[in-house]
Every structure is written in structure tokens, then in C-alpha cells.
């Protein structure tokens, strides 16, 4: 579970993080089965990556919103000028609300009507087909529209070098520390 949460923390985009979680899930389960004969339930490690990533997305929205409010109302406030509520709403990343509502609805259904858990799991399983399909399309389209020669000419190499330095110098190690602090000792249930 540490490895799954680590993927969620260290890999930048949602699709890539969840795909990394899926790969980690498959590798760890295959190794545990081959070497120790332990057959862990599938998708728990990937679930850790997804959950961590979704919570990051939700809180990026919340923090960005708070920061924007503080910035406009305290730091760069002009006398007599007030922020319109509509302005905040226009700038708010609405996809975050989709995550929050879906999570809240499924949690409410799961807790209030335990008898529906089986159906909810089946529905999630059906949804997984689309998840796989859309991942495939995401990476296919990224590959198709990326013009790496043009990006290189534009000086993106320097930006990529800075990003790689930050990633391997700090981000993945901080991610590993945080996921270890929260998930150390947790393992998926055995089938």
C-alpha cells in the first residue's frame, strides 16, 4: 500500500498516477504470489494511488481557492473594490466538485445501505472498463499530438531538466516518506 500511495503522490498527472498504481499493483501481486504464495486482492494498491491522487486534486482546488481569496482580499486589495462571488465561482476548478460529490454519494450509499454494496461494486466494475479505455485513449492522444522536435526547439529541454531534477531530487523522496508514514504495515487483503 506504501508503493501505491507513493505513485499517487509522486506521479504528476491523474491518468499517469493511476496507471502507475495499476502497474505497481500487478508487479507486487505477481511477486508476492510467485515468491511467497500470497494471493493479494487485486486493485487495492491501485486504489491507494487513486485515492491519494484524488484527495490531492480536491485539496489543490480548496487551497487554490483560499489562496485566491486571501490574495484578492488582503494582499492585493484595492480600496473600495470587492471580489464578486461570481468571479470566485468562474475561477473555481469545477471538476473538483465532481470528485467531491461522487465520493460523498458513494460513501453515503455504502454506509447507509450496506445491502447495496454488492451492486455498487458491480457498477464500479462496469465503470472500470471505461477507465481502461479512457486511459488508453489519453495516452494515445498525448502521443499523437506531442511534437517533441518542436518542444525541444522551443527550449522545453531546460524546463524538463529542472522538472527531472526536482522530481528525483525532492518530490519522489518526500512522497515516499509521507506514504511510508501513513501506510507502513498496511497490506491488501488476501484472496
Amino acid at each position, binding site marked *: 500500500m506504501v508503493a501505491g500511495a507513493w505513485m499517487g503522490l509522486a506521479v504528476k498527472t491523474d491518468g499517469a498516477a493511476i496507471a502507475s498504481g495499476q502497474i505497481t499493483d500487478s508487479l507486487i501481486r505477481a511477486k508476492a504470489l510467485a515468491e511467497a504464495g500470497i494471493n493479494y486482492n487485486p486493485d487495492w494498491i491501485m486504489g491507494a494511488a487513486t485515492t491519494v491522487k484524488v484527495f490531492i486534486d480536491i485539496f489543490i482546488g480548496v487551497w487554490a481557492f483560499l489562496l485566491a481569496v486571501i490574495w484578492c482580499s488582503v*494582499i492585493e486589495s484595492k480600496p473600495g473594490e470587492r471580489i464578486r462571488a461570481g468571479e470566485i465561482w468562474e475561477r473555481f476548478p469545477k471538476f473538483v466538485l465532481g470528485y467531491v460529490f461522487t465520493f460523498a454519494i458513494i460513501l453515503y450509499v455504502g454506509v447507509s445501505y450496506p445491502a447495496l454494496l454488492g451492486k455498487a461494486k458491480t457498477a464500479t466494475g462496469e465503470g472500470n472498463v471505461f477507465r481502461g479505455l479512457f486511459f488508453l485513449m489519453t495516452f494515445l492522444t498525448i502521443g499523437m499530438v506531442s511534437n517533441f522536435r518542436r518542444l525541444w*526547439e*522551443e*527550449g*522545453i529541454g531546460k524546463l524538463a531538466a529542472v522538472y527531472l531534477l526536482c522530481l528525483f531530487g525532492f518530490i519522489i523522496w518526500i512522497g515516499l516518506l*509521507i506514504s511510508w*508514514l*501513513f*501506510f*507502513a*504495515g*498496511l*497490506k491488501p487483503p488476501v484472496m
Partner: protein
Amino acid sequence: MPEEPRLAEEMRKMEEEEFLPIEKKLVTWSIVLGILLLGVFLWISRTYFAVGH
């Protein structure tokens, strides 16, 4: 038709900007808040959801 802006040229045109004092304060407080919240969430996790610890 206006020419498409090129990232390399735009980056060359950018002037170096010093951090504003308020930005330095913001970075410092963000790190402090991050460390504090990490401690708080870790305590909540280990106290109320002590699975595997």
C-alpha cells in the same frame, strides 16, 4: 493572420523578477503549515485509524 507566439522567444523576453517580500512570506508559511498539518494528520491517522501501525 497574427503569428503564433513561440515559447522560446517569450521566455527570452521575460525579465528576471525578484521575489516580493509577501511571496517569501507565503512560501515560508506554506512550508510551516504543511509540516504542522502533516503532524496533525499523522496523529489523527495513528490515533483513530490505527490499522497496521
